[in-house]
């Protein structure tokens, strides 16, 4: 294999990952489903589907509609609840040597903090990712991540409740993502995941009915990649020391490199893994080969190397 002399390790919010390819929350379920395709122990980190305090059955169907180079989803955080997950899923991941990042979600600051407390002291939880793209039911139903103060308050509560690094996952739907990023970092976030899905909608032209049962849903896939790369670049320029997991539309090795150069230290694959179930492997091996071919010896040498054209 080419690329064996390449150092793929990356450091992220106190973690050391074997390679920078991680899974995007909600796109790899609990990991177990994918054992037929990939060795979860060899993935940079498995970011699991967002967990809430109580189990959730999620939204009615249709939950998905395809769009040009993308898809909309409105799943509604279907998950077994943190307790069932701790009992049934975490041990399986730990046994296989996976680096586990737990995404936490909820409707209120207390919800999130509850999940974070349940994860305290649990062996095998490497970090917490705070899914800030949930509507804050106590605050006009507005999504946490659209408001710097609500975001900061939430991250502060999770960071207090937690004994592992806390990574805040933001959305590009905010007018000023850099301001939100600053606010959550000041509130104790050790890293950022950029970006979650972008709010969208599709309508069946013939019937006029919204395609998703939930009316609105999150846009993912290659369509949003330019938005995600922009956000990673903006935030990395403003906060160069804050570790970033880049996420949004990753399909190819070149996409991974774009995110690394924009400033991400790890890159999450979501929708891309639906199309290629071997994506985490294909990309890990492909990245090593690409780096060898282009004379790069370490992932860390690529991070944040994007340059801007001379505006001559």
């Amino acid at each position: 294999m080419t690329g064996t002399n390449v150092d793929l390790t990356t450091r992220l919010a106190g973690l050391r990952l074997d390679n920078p390819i991680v899974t995007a929350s909600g796109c790899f379920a609990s990991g177990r489903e994918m054992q037929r395709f990939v060795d979860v122990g060899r993935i940079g980190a498995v970011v699991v589907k967002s967990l809430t305090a109580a189990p959730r059955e999620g939204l009615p169907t249709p939950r998905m509609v395809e769009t040009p180079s993308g898809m909309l989803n409105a799943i509604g955080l279907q998950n077994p609840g943190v307790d069932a997950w701790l009992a049934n899923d975490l041990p399986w991941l730990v046994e296989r040597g996976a680096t586990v990042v737990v995404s936490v979600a909820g409707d209120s600051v207390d919800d999130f903090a509850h999940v974070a407390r349940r994860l305290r002291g649990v062996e095998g939880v490497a970090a917490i990712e705070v899914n800030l793209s949930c509507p804050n039911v106590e605050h006009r139903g507005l999504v946490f991540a659209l408001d710097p103060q609500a975001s900061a308050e939430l991250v502060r509560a999770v960071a207090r409740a937690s004994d592992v690094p806390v990574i805040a996952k933001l959305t590009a739907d905010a007018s000023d993502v850099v301001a939100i990023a600053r606010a959550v970092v000041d509130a104790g976030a050790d890293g950022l995941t950029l970006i979650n899905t972008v709010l969208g909608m599709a309508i069946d032209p013939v019937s006029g009915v919204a395609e998703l049962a939930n009316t609105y849903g999150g846009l993912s896939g290659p369509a949003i990649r330019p938005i995600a790369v922009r956000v990673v670049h903006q935030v990395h320029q403003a906060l160069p020391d804050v570790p970033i997991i880049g996420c949004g539309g990753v399909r190819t090795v070149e996409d991974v490199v774009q995110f690394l150069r924009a400033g991400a230290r790890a890159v999450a694959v979501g929708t891309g893994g639906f199309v290629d179930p071997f994506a985490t492997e294909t990309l890990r091996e492909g990245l090593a080969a690409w780096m060898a071919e282009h004379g790069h010896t370490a992932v860390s040498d690529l991070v944040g190397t994007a340059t801007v054209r001379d505006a001559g």
Partner: protein
Amino acid sequence: MSDVMGRVEEDGPLRVVAEVVARRPSGPYVTLVLAAPELAARCRPGQFLEVAVDVPGTLLRRPLSIARAEVGEAGSLGTVSLVVGPEGEGSAWLGRVRTGQQLDVVGPLGRAFPIPQRPATCLLVGGGYGAAPLHYLTEVLVPLGHRVDLIVGAATEDTLLHSIEAKRLAHSLRTTTDDGSAGLHGRVTDAMPAVLARGDVDVVYACGPNAMLAAVSTVATRAGIPVRVALEERMACGLGVCFTCVIPVRDRDDEVRMRRSCIDGPVMDGARVQWRALGLAGAVEAAERVDLAAAGTDAP
């Protein structure tokens, strides 16, 4: 020829780039035969493949039922067949695929129809392209010593799917069309009472549009017979990781839970699926009115 791109488990799904070695249009359907020996050896009726389509702007694979799998013997290559019906752009593209072209497929995925442990009488009910997996199931059941009664329905004569092999193997074959252009004028459920009236049916298997599955499940359940149906729900991954394809199912503990039809299905217990919650109350109610004693109208 086929090119296997990755696998982990000995018996798990594969990603294969397989050559289309035959293409047979019939009515609105096109049957595609892929040369894919490794894949063929793993397939069972009720399972599906996720097929990449080469349409600009299209991202996701298309789930298609396995319509047949022939394990190559003595020099002949193993093949897997798909039957594509007309739907949107993806199926239109698949319908235009030519012999010699390559298709990128992932599979086999999902749970197959459970095969009875002891000799059983099986009623198989297929609608539209859903008949294909039941033809395949017939080819699996009969050599194992099971009796197969087959009901195949469609909207019109043109859209009835035929299989010489299944016709030869099945103990009986009934066809229905909505417009009466061939076979019994009516729905597949109208052909069920005559078979059920014999009193020997051990299990019903069905594949077709969800409304048909709701009706077949209702009729079978009223007759007190277990029923297994292969469901269709929109799928983003087909792998069990995205939770888009869920179906409300009443579990053994009597709780209704959202089950992933790609990994907990597509074959599910028709008696447990919550058809009304799927918006199919109409089909259920119509099936509740089907006269189970109407055996007299039978003419197989």
